């Protein structure tokens, strides 16, 4: 059972307070009317389903009720970072060696990784 760092509450909380909401960073097309049926179907249903690093959206349902994103390894279930809505992940499958990119997130994610030792 996961121990999830809520980026809004600023602490680890039990998984039971959260609900997973599927893949993160699925953006509704700007102009739906100009989408082809295929593009619309892709938006609605087609998802990345990687074994390994995955970015997913969760909501702190019994808590602050905020949606946020988690970078998690779907094979080991290790949570690598959590970040707020609108922010970009600092760890991706491409940077999977754990070397955080030089984004603004690097610092928080290191802090979270350290906390992750407890997790």
């Amino acid at each position, binding site marked *: 059972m996961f121990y999830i760092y809520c980026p809004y*509450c600023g602490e680890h909380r039990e998984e039971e307070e959260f609900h997973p909401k599927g893949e993160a960073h699925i953006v509704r097309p700007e102009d739906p009317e100009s989408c082809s049926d295929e593009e619309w179907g892709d938006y609605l249903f087609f998802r990345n389903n990687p074994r390994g690093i995955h970015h997913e959206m969760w909501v702190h349902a019994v808590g602050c009720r905020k949606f946020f994103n988690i970078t998690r390894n779907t094979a080991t279930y290790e949570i690598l970072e959590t970040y707020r809505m609108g922010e970009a992940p600092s760890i991706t499958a491409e940077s999977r060696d754990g070397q955080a990119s030089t984004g603004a997130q690097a610092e928080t994610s290191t802090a979270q990784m350290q906390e992750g030792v407890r997790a």
Partner: protein
Amino acid sequence: MSNIVDDKVKTFDTRTEAKVPVESPLAYSYRRSGAPAPGKDSGAVLRERPFLGHLVLRGGAIVLDEALRSVLDMPLPGEPQGLVVDASGERSVQWISPDEWLLIVPGGEEFELENRLREALGDAHFAIANVGGGQTLLELEGAASSELLMKSVIYDVHPRHFPVGKAVTTVFAKTSVILRRPSEERWELVVRRSFADYVYRWLLDAGEEYAIGVER
């Protein structure tokens, strides 16, 4: 009784001064399940504080903090999970989320307070919702309180992790509560009205081991 601060938002005093019967969320539970009197050996004592004023404040921390200081002479808690209680112990404000706080005041104060806050907040983007009829406050005291809570909530209630001045929304059995620690001796649970009977029956059942009593 109705007071339109401006034409944009409609506030409404849902309380009456008329002498009419009023029922707290636990009224039905007392009739249905009874209320064991606290005894010498009671390790936990439960008490409802019904009919308080509950306001949800939404908006930016800075403007809300300013407004609250000017109207109530209280700051917003500066940190997540923060709980601030005023000197009288009668008024409190707690962090719920980055743009949400819960203000609990003596019953009857909330409508005027809402209007004064609205005035103080002026054109800022904010919202205030009166939710006093929809939730109630339970106080829990006694040596076994934290054990009883460990049976009930998933959040860590050890004093190292849950000092006085903390408040969290968390899972309580199969519902949720707001759990607060206003003082060393006392825990508070803010419970939704429709779940209050479930929470009450749970606490009586889980508290049997500690000879839980209910003060009415």
